[in-house]
């Protein structure tokens, strides 16, 4: 597709970046980059591709006008924030950086022809494609948990309508009920997420429904920041939060969303007043449709560049990618996206990719004045991603109230900064 055709198409689609497109046509773009997914993994490479080479023609394929973040969506459930505060638009990417935002979905990718077919049937050509499709739910992998069940027993593992549904259910719940949270096996998006969610729901109960309880039924025996969470639960919420690991029959094997009841491996049934199922996950569907995932449903990538090992000139970042030991966190998605953007720019210039360097800092909010964190710096060693020895780790146990309060404040500061780095200030 010639660029002029694309401009016509963009006009039809009502693209918000049509004005920004004109200069790049006049100048002659140095290459065409298409980014699929405008979340915390996709928006940063769209922006940084333009920062690294303003002559590139960069198109961001994202149907939403505003993106609602999983980070801090637990704080919405806890009543610490409203939905508007976790929504971000694309105005700054378009007006300041010259990214073209097309509000369509990617429906098919032809990695041989190097085209992305979007909703409506139009095709975008690319020289380099970056996918940040996030996760999709493995519907049916947990018996009884399908799309219809998620309307009764929300997952709220993609922020937006599901977050609001779960919040409404909590508000409607009678005091004295049990909030049951079903936590999945690894790997899944945001490893500390279920345990922070337990805290935020408990915070809501503590401030509004003091006779209610939180019960976590877990398909694992260990989880992220576990000693810190367990200390925080004890210190802040007493016995309000109960955690049942797999070794104590915590693994849920069947969900009855209508009855709000779950059944464990050994036949124990738990009745919930509000049932929240964090189900088994996989890379966002477009990755599988493009033939970019392995048997487990995640996308294997070259560690140094995050270029797919299954298709050339296609990069996959964020939760969809296999990047262990980096966790599936928003921080890592942003970090991977920017490093991949540099690799793409180098590749288009016929140069070797820069030496990668990534980081992670993941805050969890136990209470408004009680934060904890895990951090890590990552690099390549012997062709694999490694955590730089001596770097990273979790907040100290038994820290002072001042230390915990500072980390809660830094969690908010982190959110503001990463949102600004990702989407801009709008």
């Amino acid at each position, binding site marked *: 597709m010639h660029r002029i055709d694309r401009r016509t198409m963009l006009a039809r689609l009502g693209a918000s970046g049509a004005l920004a497109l004109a200069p790049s046509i006049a100048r002659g773009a*140095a290459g065409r980059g298409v980014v699929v997914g405008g979340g915390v993994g996709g928006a940063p490479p769209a922006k940084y591709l333009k920062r690294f*080479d303003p002559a590139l023609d960069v198109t961001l394929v994202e149907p939403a006008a505003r993106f609602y973040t999983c980070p801090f969506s637990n704080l919405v459930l806890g009543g610490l924030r409203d939905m508007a505060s976790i929504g971000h638009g694309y105005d700054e990417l378009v007006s300041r950086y010259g990214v073209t935002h097309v509000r369509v979905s990617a429906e098919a990718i032809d990695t041989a022809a190097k085209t992305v077919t979007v909703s409506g049937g139009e095709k975008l050509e690319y020289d380099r494609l970056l996918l940040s499709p996030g996760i999709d739910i493995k519907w049916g992998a947990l018996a009884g948990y399908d799309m219809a069940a998620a309307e009764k027993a929300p997952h709220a593992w993609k922020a937006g309508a599901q977050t609001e549904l779960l919040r409404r259910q909590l508000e409607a719940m009678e005091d004295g009920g049990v909030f049951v949270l079903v936590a999945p096996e690894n790997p899944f998006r945001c490893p500390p997420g279920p345990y922070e969610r337990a805290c935020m729901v408990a915070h809501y109960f503590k401030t509004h429904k003091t006779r209610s309880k939180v019960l976590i039924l877990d398909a694992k025996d260990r989880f992220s920041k576990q000693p810190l969470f367990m200390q925080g639960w004890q210190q802040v919420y007493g016995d309000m939060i109960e955690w049942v690991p797999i070794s104590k029959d915590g693994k849920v094997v069947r969900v009855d969303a209508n009855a709000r009841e779950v059944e464990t491996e050994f036949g124990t049934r738990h009745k919930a007043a509000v049932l929240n199922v964090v189900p088994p996950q996989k890379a966002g569907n477009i990755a599988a449709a493009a033939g970019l995932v392995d048997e487990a449903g995640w996308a294997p990538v070259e560690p140094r560049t995050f270029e797919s090992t299954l298709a050339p000139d296609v990069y996959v970042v964020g939760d969809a990618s296999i990047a262990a030991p980096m966790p599936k966190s928003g921080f890592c998605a942003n970090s991977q996206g920017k490093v991949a953007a540099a690799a793409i720019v180098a590749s288009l210039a016929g140069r070797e990719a820069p030496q990668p360097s990534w*980081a992670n800092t993941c805050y969890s909010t136990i209470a408004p004045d009680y934060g904890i964190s895990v951090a890590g*710096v990552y690099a390549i060693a012997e062709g694999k991603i490694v955590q730089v020895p001596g770097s990273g780790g979790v907040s100290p146990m038994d820290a002072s109230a001042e230390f915990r309060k500072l980390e809660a404040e830094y969690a908010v*500061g982190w959110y503001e900064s990463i949102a*600004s780095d990702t989407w801009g200030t709008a």
Partner: protein
Amino acid sequence: MRPGLSGTRALAGAALLMLGAPSGTLAEDALQLEVLAASCANCHGTDGNSSGAIPRIGGRPQAALARQLRAFKAGTVEGITVMTRIAKGYSDEQLDTLARHFAERPRP
């Protein structure tokens, strides 16, 4: 084990190299430095221009930034939450390079 330093040594010349780069693409050394510095933006904002609870590092004096980063790494500063854990992931040379990079960022 640590990210390579070969691309970050001749940073004083990065601006000059950029002039010679084709089609506006950042020169090799400058791009390497952007990769190293990219992680800092996640907490300190693009170009280190944080507006929230986390300190702004963009446009601050290089010597002060370098001294602070090395002190974080050594663990000699009291009451530090996450920066000691992060600074230990970088060589002294990388920390100095980052200090220079952020000192040179324009303030908005």
